[in-house]
């Protein structure tokens, strides 16, 4: 099996290709595996064991890692995971090379930008009107959740093309709030 991987650590993203022999991990809950990273000709060995659902103990040359794999709440791709190893957190997107050839990972979207609710909550106040020009950092909407009011700000300057919400309504994570035209 081959995996094309986008790994995000903090603000940095790197791309990798990981190869595992077919059938690795299909049935057992642990064992030895061989892998090759980024086209390296020599395979490396690792020892793995699933110690709880989605939690993998991995020994790499004797070093002990524990990785907790969950499906990202904001996952858009089918195989996008949030992985915690000790105190480090990664966002990992897997793709098989064939899929990629037929479309694959697209670049960052340009043009109008949707401002989404970062959490569920209640809209307390809408600070802008449609067609209004806003500077980067200007307040757009105030959401209340968990007894805190949080002001969402414009990530860049632009024109408010659409306002989707009004004060008093409840929203879920990822709900569209405002569309900014560039």
């Amino acid at each position: 099996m081959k995996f094309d991987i986008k790994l995000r650590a903090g603000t940095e993203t790197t791309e990798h290709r990981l190869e595992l022999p077919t059938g690795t991990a299909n049935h057992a809950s642990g064992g030895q595996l061989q892998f090759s990273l980024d086209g390296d000709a020599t395979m490396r060995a690792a020892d793995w064991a699933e110690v709880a659902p989605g939690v993998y103990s991995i020994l790499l040359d004797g070093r002990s890692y524990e990785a907790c794999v969950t499906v990202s709440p904001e996952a858009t791709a089918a195989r996008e995971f949030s992985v915690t190893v000790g105190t480090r957190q990664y966002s990992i997107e897997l793709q098989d090379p064939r899929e990629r050839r037929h479309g694959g990972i697209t670049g960052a979207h340009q043009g109008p930008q949707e401002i989404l609710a970062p959490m569920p909550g209640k809209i307390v106040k809408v600070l802008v009107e449609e067609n209004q020009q806003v500077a980067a950092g200007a307040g757009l909407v105030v959401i209340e959740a968990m007894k805190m009011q949080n002001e969402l700000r414009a990530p860049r300057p632009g024109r408010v093309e659409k306002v989707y919400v009004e004060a008093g309504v409840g929203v879920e994570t990822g709900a569209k709030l405002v569309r900014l035209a560039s």
Partner: protein
Amino acid sequence: MFRKILVANRGEIALRVMRTCREMGLATVAVYSDVDRKAPHVRYADEAYPIGRAPSTESYLRIDRILDVAKRCHAEAIHPGYGFLSENQEFARACAAAGILFVGPPASAMELMGSKTAARHAAIAAGLPVVPGVDRNLESFEEIRRVAEEIGYPVMLKAAAGGGGKGLRLVHAPGELESAWRNACSEAENAFGDASVYLEKYLDRPRHIEIQVLGDQHGHLIHLGERECSLQRRHQKVMEECPSPVVDEPLRRRMGETAVRIAQLAGYVNAGTVEFLVDQDRNFYFLEMNTRLQVEHPITELVVGIDLVREQLKIAAGERLALAQDDVRMHGAAIECRVYAEDPENNFFPSPGLITRLKTPSGPGVRDDSGVYEGWTVPLEYDPLLSKLAVWGRDRDEAIARMRRALAEYDVEGIKTNLAFFRRLLGHPDFVAGRLDTGLVDRALADGSGADRSRETEIAAMLAAALHATRTEPKASVQRAAMGESRWKIAGREALLDSWPRRERN
């Protein structure tokens, strides 16, 4: 001592109070809102009764319903925890009227100390030090502006009925005053039903140090030393420690005596906290009194070895304090981190939702006062405090090392938490050196998370993700099978799926 007590709260503080009740052999009664049926405090209590819909104004703030439950189930006392009704005089009075013991100060003390301006008046009249400012509520913007000019910028706007950072605004220059005033009034109105604000001089990098007091109904008042609460974000405490690195025994005695005098002025009974600002020259100024248990009470418990909730309950039952001031001795050092459901990478936005995995720290010197469990859905209606993680060490260095270890053991998945932020804060050189002030948190945040990458760790992460993808996909096929396909057909297709990456290798 009474036999049955209602805890008019939820989350970790309800559990923490119930734990001591159980140790004292008291039956516990929980109340819960619609979204809290599966909450830990409902599971832990001996009895549990619903009191309304999710918004706290329809449940945890409903004095009538809570008292109705208390009467129906014959609870003799009510512990309010903190937040919700804990500083509500009306509630204290209603309990008294219903013949139910309120575990807290008398309504009169709450009234005096509940208004920051009244508390300032009282302190000034008694000759005690307060932060320069005005000691009356300011109603009009004109008055605010005039007073701000008199005191000199920067100034701090504060809600008179406030607490917990709500209705607070720091104003650096005259141009910012009006919008800050509007926001503060509106937040104060929303949070406390009272839009009154007042004004204080803003001190440069002050320390926020508070004194725990304890008084019985027979006029005996003592203090239990200080807690340093200078590490704040948005005027909310995030991490506290005991003792304070700058408080020595003489300063502790002076601050403690001042705190006891303030409590005496108010006719204070039960557990309370007197907050001070301490400037760079170690002068201290009375700020306000919190007429309830504090979130950070565990670090005092760890260092003085006294269960504050147990003392609260005994005091409420009319017992005399068994402790004299000289019985209070501090041993070692304690630190508390407030573990919140919030996303430090996204401006600390709240992050309610389902906890899919929870691994909590334990072992020597670690105390986790949690209010959640794996599988619990943290509701969006309430405070985002998941847990108070506290550690004790023989000295401050041991406590810091232990907190780092405990934070490394802590893992919460499914929602975002501020654990990673604490890990960073505990490594900040100013924190390690004990140079604490209310701006340190922002400086630590500004230092950035750094490109602390580890290739081997990343390999482990990628292997785990690949293994997980491989292992979870066949299950998806089985689900498909349940929808009407033959297991044998699926098996054939899986064999195909398995083989194509091999072909891809060439």
